[in-house]
């Protein structure tokens, strides 16, 4: 083939093998094929080797009787339950500690992040010291600190700190009365749900009125009133059908009531204190990313500092804050697996620990555990992305 010299004709096509697009496709297919082959080889080899060494495989064990007990269960579980049930119990424990940790870390992180920007020298320095110390100490050490150094000095059950013969704090945890719901109690949560709907309606009405007339309506106070008032009214009408099961010291431990085990407390404190220091920096950078001119413009329009922050600064800052905040939530959830170090019965300790040891099916159990953490992380990520899309700058 000869290449013609005239510029007017169509650009000459390179030969098939010299076409960059063809080459790119070929190399991508080769690499992908290599990776797939490697994966198939690894999986196949693992199966063959497990077979030849007589290591059992498969997922039948999930329905077998587990035979061990778990220290903290949110749903019914005993020694006769299956490994599958133990898996769910430990998964719920992981989700519980992550959810509480995320809530506390967010609260504390926002407080400290805002304190860091305070014009008060002492407050801003204290926040800075907190951030610099906490985020530079490894999390595992902090967990050990709270569990072994702080909570271990609590007294024994017989010498518990007590409040009103109903709340007891000792080395075994915090014992609080457990509510016992009696017939007719449903009226109270129903009242709360009705309150939620009412609040949504009020908020919508208030926004429409503001957009139409510019008049402000104290939505927050009215909402609190509705949310607290309706359940109270419902309770008063039904005569509060609720009694309490108090913890009582019997034998070795307190029986009855609800128990907050020290492992959970130590883990929640450590995770939220640690993650809060990162969230504080995220919040600080987010607020600082909104240019000073925005504040000045808001003030010059006559907005007071409160509404200026709420209506102008925060919505813009949130756009910067949310993506790195998502990362911190993911980190906290994954870090919750350090629970195994202090005997909190989470997924890693119970399922990838005891269950793995008793069945010996390491490959299956570790695969399930990894899949679970992946799913949790992707779910948090998806939820935060949804929120981010809602908060993102809408171009008009």
């Amino acid at each position, binding site marked *: 083939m000869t290449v013609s010299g005239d510029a007017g004709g169509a650009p000459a096509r390179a030969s098939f093998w010299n076409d960059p697009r063809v080459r790119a496709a070929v190399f991508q297919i080769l690499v992908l094929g290599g990776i797939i082959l490697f994966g198939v080889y690894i999986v196949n080899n693992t199966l063959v080797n497990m077979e*030849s060494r007589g290591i059992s495989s498969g997922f039948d064990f999930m329905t077998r009787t587990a035979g061990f007990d778990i220290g903290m269960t949110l749903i019914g579980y*005993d020694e006769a339950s299956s490994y599958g049930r133990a898996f769910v119990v430990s998964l719920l424990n992981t989700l519980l500690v992550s959810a509480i940790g995320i809530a506390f870390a967010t609260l504390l992180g926002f407080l400290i992040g805002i304190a860091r920007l305070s014009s008060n020298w002492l407050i801003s320095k204290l926040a800075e010291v907190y951030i610099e110390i906490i985020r530079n100490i490894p999390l595992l050490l902090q967990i050990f600190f709270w569990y*072994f150094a702080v909570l*271990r000095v609590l007294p024994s059950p017989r010498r518990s700190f007590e409040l009103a013969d109903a709340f007891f704090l000792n*080395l075994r945890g915090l014992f609080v009365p457990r509510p016992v719901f009696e017939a007719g109690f449903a009226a109270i949560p129903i009242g709360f749900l009705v309150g939620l709907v009412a609040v949504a309606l009020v908020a919508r009405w208030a926004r429409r009125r503001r957009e139409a007339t510019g008049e402000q309506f104290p939505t927050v106070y009215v909402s609190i009133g509705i949310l607290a008032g309706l359940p109270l009214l419902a309770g008063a009408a039904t005569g509060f059908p609720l009694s309490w099961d108090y913890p009582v010291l019997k034998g*070795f431990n307190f029986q009855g009531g609800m128990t907050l085990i020290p492992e959970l407390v130590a883990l929640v404190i450590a995770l939220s204190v640690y993650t809060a220091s990162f969230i504080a920096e995220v919040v600080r950078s987010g607020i600082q990313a909104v240019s000073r001119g925005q504040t000045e413009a808001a003030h010059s329009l006559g907005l007071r500092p409160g509404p200026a922050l709420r209506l102008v600064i925060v919505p813009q800052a949130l756009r910067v804050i949310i993506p790195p905040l998502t990362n911190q939530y993911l980190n906290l959830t994954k870090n919750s697996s350090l629970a195994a170090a202090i005997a909190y019965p989470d997924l890693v*300790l119970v399922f990838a620990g005891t269950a793995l040891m008793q069945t*010996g099916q390491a490959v299956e159990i570790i695969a399930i555990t990894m899949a679970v953490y992946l799913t949790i992380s992707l779910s948090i990520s998806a939820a935060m992305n949804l929120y981010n899309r809602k908060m993102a700058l809408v171009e008009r």
Partner: protein
Amino acid sequence: MHYKTVFAAAALAVGLALPASSGTMDDVKAKGHVQCGVSQGLPGFSNPDQSGNWTGIDVDVCRAVAAAVFGDANMVKYTPLSAKERFTALQSGEIDMLSRNTTWTLVRDTALGLDFAGVNFYDGQGFMVRKDKGVKSASELDGASVCVNIGTTTELNMADFFRANGMKYEPVVFEKSDEVVAAYDAGRCDVYTTDRSGLAAQRVKLKDPGAHMVLPETISKEPLGPVVRHGDNQWGDIVRWSLIAMIEAEEMGVTSGNVDDMRKMATNPATKRLLGMEGDMGKNLGLSTDWSYNIIKQVGNYGEVYERHVGPDTPIGLARGPNALWTNGGLMYPMPVR
């Protein structure tokens, strides 16, 4: 060289995915030492002494194997493992043998792809409590918090015991045995449970050992012994017969002190076979003829090992009990070396 390091790292990462090597004996000879999995510190069984050398009756099983294979009991390297890590370390080939107070059970012998090479200590599970709790029997433990080590038969026996007796309890499960002891010592639990030998050994680590007592009940059988990978029968034989040789030596009255004299003067055919002067026991195992001589000379017979590490004159202070020779009413019964 660099290529090899990368390969070793990859091998560790994929573990089971690599081709199975059945010739542990060849591997051991090639690298020049026995890689032995031991506990992270259980006095009397496997524990580093003041100068950092591992000692204990479990350690002496590893040393006996090294003496049989290399003629030198010191050619062992130790890998301290938690109860949770031990089986995967053996399955993946990270260690050659596991000698870590491990109970012989059906599931471990079959579903985990392991083989038990014998029993070097007969044990049973017990409970330790503070004396001031006023508990006299395990049947009074209803509602107690119990500290226990993860991944052990102990964890299951405890669940069985409390379930069978209709009692409630709160398990507090730690990964390292030191953490279990520390939590019990701090009062997080009312009860510490593990094998009775373990209770005796860990007791010396408590702040005030005298303030604690072991309850009379033994709630399980715990035959502890060395473990090898399933399917490598030659290596399994070497470990099994190294242990048997130590017990047989005690029965024959051969000690590390008199083994040289015995070698010159022994007339009993069984003793002669044990010491490699008759028959070709070493050859059948793929070892030298003086394999058992080396074990006895350098490590000692089972009785010596027992007295040295856990016997009444040690801080552990355990009487022979079921671990006495069968001729003395115990369970230690060596298979005939012939």
